[in-house]
């Protein structure tokens, strides 16, 4: 009877240890993780005014995760990326964050979309729930000052882009720059950074700001106003459709003014919507060209054709594909048991990782922004082409 009791105890101990081995490290720090899957979440504007970015962004990220999953996943785990449509709405984004964290139990928020929208979710997601928010599409300087544990950005901040564009315009010899921006705080904040960039290279240049109501569809009076101000360059910090309408109005009015914009403008949608009117438009890109012969670009085009056949290759989906690739790299290097801490540890150990899409990225605890390089681009003959050397915003 005694030996039976001993055998039973051993069996129980073995069963418990097997059971424990297959469970996550703890329910608190490894939510969404099982031996064969990892659940992550995001909000993306799939409807509303910025769906033009959100739809291809999702297609790019999802294509990379589908590719990885078809290859067996990361360390045997398939990636389940739950995406909710935030419609570019901050309140809706907070509700989505609550759902993803408390109901779907995600390990991390990966490639969430929208600057003001994602910021609205910080108090709940990052401060209260301590959920990592990784590689958001969007961002602002004040996101990282003071540093928020768990918030890691990938691309050059819009403020830094604006300063770089200002420097670019000054380098091109423009002396009277008009900055047109969508009239809300986020766009205004970005627009305000153009002037320091211009003045850094050309002290005698003038920079004027012109806010325009977001959602404006008739640019007739605005174009007349612009022509009265006689700028020799315009920097547009606006939604894509409005940049297209402004460019159209300027060309129709016969205005020969160089127009610059920021990275979200670099995409096929600009050319599809603007046609001949956006010819000559200049903007910096966060990635290399998705149409190049680079192996990463080829892999992207093949994956997009297979997993998102309705989506044409483009800069925004390419950016999403690259962001997903960087996330997968960190996930593959995260120590077991996989937890939020080990995932962040893998990101912080990432030194000069070259995705082939973004310039090499480096993260550290005190360096939450992985990227600092921009590629100047211009629309020529209906295509975005690289013009000039890469801009390092840290050298500014």
């Amino acid at each position, binding site marked *: 009877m005694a030996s039976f009791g001993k055998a039973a105890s051993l069996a129980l101990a073995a069963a418990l240890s097997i059971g424990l081995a297959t469970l996550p490290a703890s329910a608190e720090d490894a939510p969404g993780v099982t031996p064969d899957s990892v659940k992550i979440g995001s909000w993306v504007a799939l409807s509303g005014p910025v769906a033009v970015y959100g739809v291809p962004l999702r297609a790019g990220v999802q294509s990379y995760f589908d590719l990885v999953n078809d290859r067996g996943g990361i360390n045997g785990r398939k990636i389940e990326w739950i995406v909710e449509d935030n419609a570019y709405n901050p309140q809706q984004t907070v509700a989505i964050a609550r759902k993803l964290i408390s109901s779907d139990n995600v390990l991390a928020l990966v490639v969430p979309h929208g600057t003001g929208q994602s910021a609205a979710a910080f108090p709940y997601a990052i401060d209260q729930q301590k959920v990592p928010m990784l590689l958001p599409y969007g961002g602002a300087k004040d996101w990282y000052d003071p540093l928020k544990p768990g918030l890691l950005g990938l691309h050059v901040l819009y403020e830094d882009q604006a300063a770089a564009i200002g420097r670019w315009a000054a380098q091109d010899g423009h002396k009277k720059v008009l900055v047109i921006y969508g*009239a809300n705080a986020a766009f205004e904040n970005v627009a305000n950074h153009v002037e320091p960039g211009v003045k850094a290279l050309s002290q005698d240049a003038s920079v004027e700001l012109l806010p325009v109501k977001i959602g404006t569809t008739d640019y007739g009076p605005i174009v007349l106003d612009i022509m009265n101000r006689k700028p020799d360059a315009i920097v547009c910090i606006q939604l894509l459709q409005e940049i297209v309408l402004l460019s159209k109005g300027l060309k129709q009015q016969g205005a020969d003014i160089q127009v610059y914009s920021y990275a979200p403008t670099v995409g096929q949608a600009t050319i599809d919507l603007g046609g001949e009117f956006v010819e000559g438009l200049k903007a910096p890109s966060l990635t290399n060209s998705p149409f190049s012969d680079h192996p990463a670009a080829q892999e992207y085009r093949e994956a997009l054709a297979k997993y998102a056949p309705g989506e044409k290759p483009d800069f925004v989906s390419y950016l999403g594909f690259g962001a997903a690739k960087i996330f997968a790299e960190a996930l593959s290097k995260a120590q077991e048991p996989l937890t939020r801490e080990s995932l962040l540890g893998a990101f912080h150990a990432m030194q000069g990782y070259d995705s082939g899409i973004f310039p090499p990225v480096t993260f550290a605890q005190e360096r939450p922004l992985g990227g600092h390089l921009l590629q100047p681009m211009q629309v020529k003959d209906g295509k975005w082409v690289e013009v000039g050397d890469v801009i390092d915003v840290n050298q500014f």
Partner: protein
Amino acid sequence: MGDIISLIISGIANGSAYALLALGIVIIFRSTDTVNFAIGDTGTLATFAALSAIAAGVPIAAAFFLAIAVAGVVGIAAERLLIRPLGHGQHLLFVALVITIGLGLVMQAGMGAFWGNTPKPFPPLVPGWIQVAGVAISLNKIAATVFALIAMGFVAWFFGYMPFGIAMRASAEDPLAARMLGLNTGRIASIAWFLGCGLAAIAMFFLAAESSLNPHIAHSPLFRAFAGVFLGGLTSMPGAVIGGFAIGVLDNIAGHYISANYRDTIVFTVIVVVLFVRPAGFLGSIRKERV
């Protein structure tokens, strides 16, 4: 003030879409006591149908008339299935208003699901542009203006001289008496919804060509069209058209001389002041009457 002529011309061109929408709103309101908030979305839906037809190889001019037909049929269906069953009564105006708001939201979601939410390039019926008084105006806008003026003329002729139009006015004046005289009031309502939604399709067709087509494109123009309706008078068809054009001009002048950022605020401030002085609008009457 040197730009005033060009601003007025450009404003009239911009206001044509508002005028077309406003006329559609008033025709439907005067025939069925329904403020149709789904009218813009109906026009957008029809324009998406036209875009699909163009992609399939249908000539753009044929797609234009297809859009009018689709919007008209959708309008008739909405009236028959959603509005007519409500019957008549004082509660109708409010209930029907809520129903059309809901219908518009459903249409937007449906268009997003079927055609996607990203803006789609849309070809103009008449490509190119010309300089008028120093301001570039697209031929597309000029065509929209011509259509708005023709539509206003047609509606005035139809309701003033055509037997069926006169019957519609009689029916609206007293539906019970009209039925006793043998007039088919149901058919009259269907025609009014067909006309109103068809005009909305024309407006959205031209607007899509000016910018791009997406499921939410009607939001801002509808807002301005209603402003035009109230400015001109909810019961007056010429008033609605003039109100729509006036909104376009006011919008341009406010945007140019005061602030491009506060165009809506300025335009609606002017309207509030006008309505304070003349609650029925410039050409409307306080006593509500149907067609």
